[in-house]
């Protein structure tokens, strides 16, 4: 049972950290650009992004399921019921959150930080880096919220992962299963581990938030 728990826990961390990391890799630059620039349709994109915060995980799971199933456009990749499929589904949920929250925190400091950087001799790249660093508390909070959504989510991973033992079973799907079986004690232990994992990741991110990066 101990090796069971360990596997489930490690897979949970792997899937949600990967999903958050990969989604943030695209979402943070996109949110930064959207926060720094003025362009037509910005308000529309902002509203759409905010709406997607509440995107139902089961719907995200369904969409990824349809895309990855045999008849779907990506069916030939044989990804359904794999951890990769679970990462993809969670990315769909994390991406709008990190993009939107990054955009708002960048907008908040953008004008002053940008002007200060340019005035002191920053080129375009250095300016973006400076603004991002000035907004780091907000940006890292955005990543935290995104990770929180990923690790706590069950609807999407159960659809595209299938809750297969030793393969795609993660903490949340295991809790669902054990609760159904009436193994409440086991389910509670898994729940406690889930909270501990979330706490651990938050502490790592918090450290970056305080320290910042050199610009």
């Amino acid at each position: 049972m101990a090796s069971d728990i360990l596997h489930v826990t490690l897979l949970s961390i792997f899937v949600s950290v990967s999903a958050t990391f990969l989604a943030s890799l695209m979402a943070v630059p996109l949110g930064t650009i959207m926060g720094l620039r003025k362009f037509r349709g910005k308000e529309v994109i902002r509203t759409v992004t905010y709406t997607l915060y509440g995107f139902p995980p089961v719907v995200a799971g369904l969409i990824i399921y349809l895309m990855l199933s045999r008849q779907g456009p990506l069916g030939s990749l044989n990804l359904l019921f794999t951890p990769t499929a679970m990462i993809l589904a969670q990315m769909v949920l994390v991406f709008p959150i990190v993009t939107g929250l990054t955009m708002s925190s960048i907008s908040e400091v953008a004008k002053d930080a940008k002007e200060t950087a340019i005035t002191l001799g920053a080129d375009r790249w250095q300016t973006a880096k400076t603004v991002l660093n000035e907004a780091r508390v907000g940006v890292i909070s955005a990543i935290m919220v995104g990770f929180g959504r990923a690790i706590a989510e069950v609807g999407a991973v159960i659809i595209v992962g299938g809750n297969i033992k030793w393969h795609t079973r993660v903490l949340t799907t295991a809790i669902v299963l054990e609760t159904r079986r009436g193994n409440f004690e086991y389910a509670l232990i898994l729940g406690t581990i889930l909270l501990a994992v979330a706490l651990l990741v938050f502490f790592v991110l918090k450290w970056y938030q305080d320290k910042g990066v050199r610009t």
Partner: protein
Amino acid sequence: MVSGQRGENMSKDTAMRAESIYKSFGGDQVLKDLSISVSHSELLAIIGPSGAGKTTLLKILNGLIEPEKGEIYFMNERLEFENDSDLKARRRMALLSQKPYPLMKSVWDNVAYPLRLRDEDEVEEKVSDALEHVSLLEISDRKASTLSSGELQRMAFARATVFEPDVLLLDEFTAHLDPYNISVLENAVDWYLKEKNAAVIMVTHNLFQAERISSTTAFLFNGEIVEKDRTIKIFDEPEDERTQAFVNGEMVF
């Protein structure tokens, strides 16, 4: 020297000049046909009522805002107002604003920031020299966001001069500060001007300050330079009656 020069005399000492600048915001003509130049070792004060276009002028000179018409030359090089093409020129000038923005770092790292942008050597030495000059070395470990307004402005001065710019642009840089901080900052400007042979343009509506520290003064009114001369001349016997009125503290129409 250069054909097509309008109004402003050019000498080989000219550090920076603006030629026939036009700028408007939403139909409001802020600057019209404005030409001005500043030489090395000159402290040019630009005085004028609020809304005369003083801050806009400084931002244009610094490359932050592009004028609709007209040209800016920095050491005879024309600014393009394109992202990185002005970088070389921009890195040799500094703008000190009325409310400086403290980067989310320590005082020390704020002052080191422009040096790191330029990949300069001897960062330690230069930063500590710059902080020494504004009496902030003792609190260099503090977060910049915890400074008082006087300390913040002194830090911003160190940050703006640590990379030894040829042109220093000051935008109401002592507004709302107490006499002690004003005198520290004015002395620092004076020291910098003499030590580095720099050109300084100071925008202010504080006439006493202009009279106290500038060598030349220009009166900016309704987006135009009404008159520019030696400071003594502007304050004692100005040519234009609008200048006369302004320096006497009267309403100008």
